């Protein structure tokens, strides 16, 4: 008990987060188009996907490997930490034509993602102002059987999209930086 107590006291969440921010940006706000911002995502979503990576349920080129080195307590602390930081939309240029198409295509997504990608649901990530390239790469993963993503509703939604529509939805959500 004493040991558990002292281990608890030692958990240094900002130090832990520093190992993430190399890739996800200072304070979890990404400066790289292919890397997601993670500050301000819902705690439930953050915790869920990290545990899915850790338990091998969710494939990822990097995150499965990295997250296996963190304890469940640390993952919970990181989820709480990032969820409390402000969501900062990425400054990026988007293509107005694709944004227009994306707006139309995402009408069928709004039930879960809201009109702009801003959702109040604890298990749904924010998409408004996320990096377009990241959103596109992620949508492609949901569509691709090679990844076998665990969220079957998203897989179903993505499978209906053409390559151009995938670009368009990414550009649309990326442009909704409010």
């Amino acid at each position, binding site marked *: 008990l004493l040991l558990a107590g002292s281990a608890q006291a030692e958990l*240094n969440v900002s130090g832990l987060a520093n190992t993430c921010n190399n*890739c996800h940006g200072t304070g979890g706000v990404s400066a790289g188009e292919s890397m997601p911002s993670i500050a301000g995502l819902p705690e439930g979503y953050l915790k869920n996907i990290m545990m899915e990576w850790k338990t091998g349920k969710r494939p990822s080129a990097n995150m499965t490997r*990295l997250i296996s080195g963190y304890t469940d307590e640390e993952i919970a602390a990181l989820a709480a930490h990032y969820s409390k930081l402000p969501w900062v939309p990425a400054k990026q240029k988007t293509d107005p034509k694709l944004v227009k198409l994306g707006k139309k295509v995402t009408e069928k997504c709004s039930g879960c993602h809201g009109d702009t990608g801003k959702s109040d649901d604890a298990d749904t990530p924010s998409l408004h102002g996320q990096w377009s390239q990241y959103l596109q790469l992620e949508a492609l993963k949901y569509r691709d059987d090679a990844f076998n993503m665990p969220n079957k509703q998203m897989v179903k939604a993505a499978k209906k999209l053409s390559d151009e529509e995938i670009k368009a939805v990414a550009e649309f959500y990326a442009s909704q930086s409010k």
Partner: protein
Amino acid sequence: ARAGAAKARVVVIGGGYAGATAAKYVKLGDAAIDVTLIEPNKIYTSCPLSNEVIVGHRDIKTLEIGYDGLKKRGINVLHDFVTGVDRAKKTVTTQGGKTLAYDALVVSPGIDFHYTGIEGYNESMIEDIPHAYKAGPQTLLLKKQLEAMPDGGKFVIVVPKGPFRCPPGPYERASLVANYFKHHGKTKSKVIIMDANDSHSKKGLFNQAWAKLYGWEKEGLGANPNGMIEWVKGAEGGTVTKLDAKSKTVSSDFVDVKADVLNIIPPHKAGKIAADAGLTGTQGNNFEKGWCKVEPMTMASAVDPNIYVVGDSCVAGEMPLYGNPNAAFDMPKSAHIAMTQAKVAAAAIVAKVNGQPVPNPYYANTCYSVVGDDYGISVAHLYRVENGTFKYIKEGSGVSMMTLPDKSPVPAAYRKLEAEYAAGWLRNVMADSFS
């Protein structure tokens, strides 16, 4: 303290990934600490992804960044070169004639090269025989030489005994040069890696990629008549001991290889100022001699508690990573780990200044290597400190998958993602340290 005086003075020597991050994170941790970063260059050029510049995939401008971001955070940036450290007086002196007092000193001068060791080779030759292992003009010089090389030529990379910065770097370079040959109708050309070591970083993944992309079959000089990459290990003649600069011929005990383009990467040591300050080991093996030993909890120098050594200059840990005690003895020298070391040091400095306990440190590394079109691979390392010593965390570390868990080949989509992530990672490490 005097009214209006800073709470403490932190001086940082060297504004690379390590030093810039240390300066920024001390300031983020406590704005009342006075931070001065000393760096001679006004523009820093990132080594990470500079191999892409050599083969024309990337503009060198995308690797350049200045110090305005740090200045905006209230950090004093002094463009000067540190020539001396007086550890007793706790001052540093510069070429420009300044003397600065410190309460805590961060030493992060990166690496310097040993130009001895290869008979017939010396520093004056790098304008003809580039190392391209400090990014900038050297990178562009090697690019020019590659472009001028005729088909059927030999591009020879001489790899020193470890430790050297970016353990996968030479092999990433070899891959991209072969890719260049493929795209420029120079398929009769070869990249020959003369390696002083008997193994290398991400070897399985590199060999897999080379087989898929560049006709690789096996190790050894001349082993791949239809392939574009040859790797000669130390035990089989890879250790270059002699150079005939005029004919660009390198020799080992077993073989002579005449190069059309010769890229000698000299052995490394900690940046000179670290040695001048008496922070480097003077005996022991390759991983001890010439490098700065540090305290695991704080990154403080093992010989001076007021000095923190972060980045390529330090030797952090003595854990045999690959089961071979001579293979990779310490944390790899990478920008990624340099930054986590700097963050640990910054947190320790802020805690010390404020009389708080030392926060628990965590160290992480990732090195992406882009080895072909839409083809990236990576390695990750995670370290913690247990009972005062570094501990390598096997879970949380490792390389990209060689196969899927069911042994089927890894879909190309995974390799493409890692190539994309490498580019996003670069933007983030540059921003996390300099902005």
